[in-house]
């Protein structure tokens, strides 16, 4: 433990270096702007920032993206409370009590509770992240290829099962992404796979055009088809924040504890991100909270629970990302992409080979949460101003950032065509309700899954039962089966409940 604290202290020193601190500050500001700007989502913002990290060294790159991720979980809350516009799906539960409290004449109090909740959730999750990461990594170090394959499979399955959209569509999206990752020259046999004689395809399709195209251009096309129709700004828009007194917050300690637990747990399980955490925490408060009967009428518990949980999920997500190389959400998939672009593969070894980097990331989450709090308190007025920018203008610049960002990787116009293709694919996915996250994850982790599967087959002489006979791999396979069948079980139970309610 002492060793961890020593490393963490080193991490703080590392983050306070001018370049890293600058990356942290820029990440916090941009993350919050992205969460507030109309038509931009948190994942889209992180994707757009990715190309700017090419020229940076790895530490400021990851700090920049992580800071965006942290502050992005708070920015959308401001618009939910003041204008009834949730910046992200995770902010929807804030409409019920946050906006109600604001409409009842106390927006400053509502904003204060949200800020305090984000700060508390963030600091709790950062502490748990540091405490859990090393034990996780030690266990992961014992893994061989069958265990790695099982873990990647679990990541795939839980992202499909816990994500949005229908289960069938999510699987098709995942398989599509995995298939995209097979395009190009096979590394072992040197055989062309699905290249159709094209020199461009022989180099393979990178995950960057897939991510930038689908999340960036695809989302803009979806909004363009809707005529960039932003909801009208309602609410009186009084802008001030009143932080609750400690005594007031102490009365809600049960809510803070429950929501932090839900948030961290949802963060650790791949696929169950901030949105599920936020909704589940609100639901848990509705079942176990002292004032559950008043939930929805504008009480502090209804603001604290979803906000604590969504911010707490960030640290949870970082644990499997850093220790296993498994991203559990769109934003962490992009952060994994940044690691890979800099030639670093996250996993248990990273704690030995790049421990300074890992602890700098940990320290940046602590400092990022505090910075987010300061920014949320002092910079709320200019932040709100960007809400009035016309979405058509914002969207054009989003598209240009997507295109130039992709171009800057290889200075090659063929990458722009990839963006256009995957932008259209992203639009079609949205239109036909295929979730995008499984495709992106399949594209990034597809090669890891293929390599660990083939290595296992070669090492164990094509004996596929090895996945079920080695204890750790068998346990992870069992979790995979649970993740797969849970939505089916939940669906059956939900249909029965709805049928009963109708009858």
């Amino acid at each position, binding site marked *: 433990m002492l060793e961890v604290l020593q490393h963490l202290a080193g991490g703080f020193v590392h983050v306070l270096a001018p370049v890293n601190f600058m990356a942290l500050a820029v990440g916090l500001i941009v993350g919050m702007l992205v969460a507030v700007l109309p038509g931009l989502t948190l994942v889209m913002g992180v994707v757009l920032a990715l190309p700017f990290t090419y020229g940076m060294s790895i530490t400021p790159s990851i700090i920049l993206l992580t800071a965006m991720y942290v502050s992005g979980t708070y920015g959308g809350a401001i618009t939910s409370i003041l204008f009834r516009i949730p910046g992200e799906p995770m902010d929807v*539960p804030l409409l019920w009590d946050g906006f109600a409290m604001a409409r009842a004449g106390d927006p400053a109090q509502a904003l204060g509770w949200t800020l305090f909740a984000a700060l508390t959730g963030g600091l709790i999750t950062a502490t748990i992240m540091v405490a859990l990461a090393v034990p996780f990594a030690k266990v992961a170090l014992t893994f061989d290829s069958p265990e790695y394959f099982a873990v990647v499979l679990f990541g795939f399955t839980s992202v499909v099962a816990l994500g949005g959209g*229908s289960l*069938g569509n999510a699987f098709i999206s995942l*398989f599509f992404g995995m298939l995209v990752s097979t395009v190009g020259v096979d590394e072992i046999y040197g055989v062309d796979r*699905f290249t159709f004689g094209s020199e461009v395809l022989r180099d393979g399709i990178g995950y960057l055009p897939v991510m930038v195209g689908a999340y960036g251009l695809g989302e803009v*096309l979806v909004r363009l088809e809707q*005529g960039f129709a932003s909801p009208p700004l309602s609410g009186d828009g009084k802008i001030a924040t009143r932080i609750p007194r400690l005594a007031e917050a102490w009365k809600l300690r049960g809510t803070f504890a429950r929501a932090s637990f839900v948030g961290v747990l949802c963060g650790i399980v791949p696929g169950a991100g901030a*949105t599920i955490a936020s909704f589940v925490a609100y639901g848990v408060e509705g079942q176990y909270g002292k004032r559950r009967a008043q939930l929805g009428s504008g009480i502090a518990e209804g603001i604290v629970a979803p906000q604590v949980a969504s911010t707490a999920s960030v640290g949870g997500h970082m644990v499997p990302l850093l220790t296993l190389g498994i991203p559990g959400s769109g934003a962490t998939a992009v952060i994994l992409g940044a690691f890979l672009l800099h030639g670093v593969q996250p996993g248990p070894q990273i704690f030995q080979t790049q421990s300074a980097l890992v602890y700098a990331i940990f320290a940046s989450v602590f400092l990022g949460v505090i910075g987010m709090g300061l920014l949320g308190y002092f910079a709320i007025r200019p932040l709100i101003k960007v809400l009035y920018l016309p979405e058509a203008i914002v*969207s*054009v610049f989003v598209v240009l950032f997507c295109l130039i960002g992709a171009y800057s990787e290889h200075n090659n116009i063929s990458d722009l065509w990839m963006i256009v293709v995957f932008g259209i694919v992203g639009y079609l996915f949205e239109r036909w309700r295929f979730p995008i996250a499984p495709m992106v994850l399949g594209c990034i982790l597809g090669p890891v899954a293929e390599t660990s599967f083939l290595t296992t087959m070669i090492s164990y002489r094509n004996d596929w039962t090895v996945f079920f006979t080695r204890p750790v791999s068998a346990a992870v396979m069992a979790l995979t089966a649970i993740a797969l069948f849970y939505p089916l079980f939940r669906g059956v139970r939900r249909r029965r409940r709805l049928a009963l309610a109708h009858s």
Partner: protein
Amino acid sequence: MAAHARKRDLHVNPRLRALLPYLLVLAAAAVLSYKAMHFGYTPRGDRPGPDVWPRAILALMIVACVVRIVSLSLKGPDDTDGVLDSVIGDALPDAERDAAPVKRFPLLLVTGVALTIAYVALLGTLGFFCDTVLYIAALIRTGRYRRWPVIVAVAFAGALAFMFVFMKVVYLSLPIGTPPFEAISLALMRLLGIR
């Protein structure tokens, strides 16, 4: 009369429309499976070949498509949701769950896609600055923003700002185009101090 019949046809086949994505994916997966069976390589002992992984993915994709097609044909669009949708569905109040359908403008979408394709296609010829000015102006107008002075100002200022940041600060070599557009790019580069 013909237009009326066409409109009726579109309304008659909502199930076929729902099946369309799966039929397309299924057809593509079948073609790619055939391609994967014909990867030319020399087997090395009992090692799995380069076709094993893609064929496994394609087989799973085909199974997923067939399941969706059968399920849609028999039960309609009701499918098991992922946990996220199910949790949100349970939590949302009825009024928010039954939100009004979104109004769509397909012509805007088609124009936006066409403009983006044209932008990429013309980038090498027009050069970054000229192409970007035209693209910004056209796409903002397509997005139903109507104040022309703002559009023109944003287009020129935006293209110049991108050029300055990416060429002068990030040292990215953006396309300068072919004559006569090349001369415009070079003049602006001199003006901005870009070498």
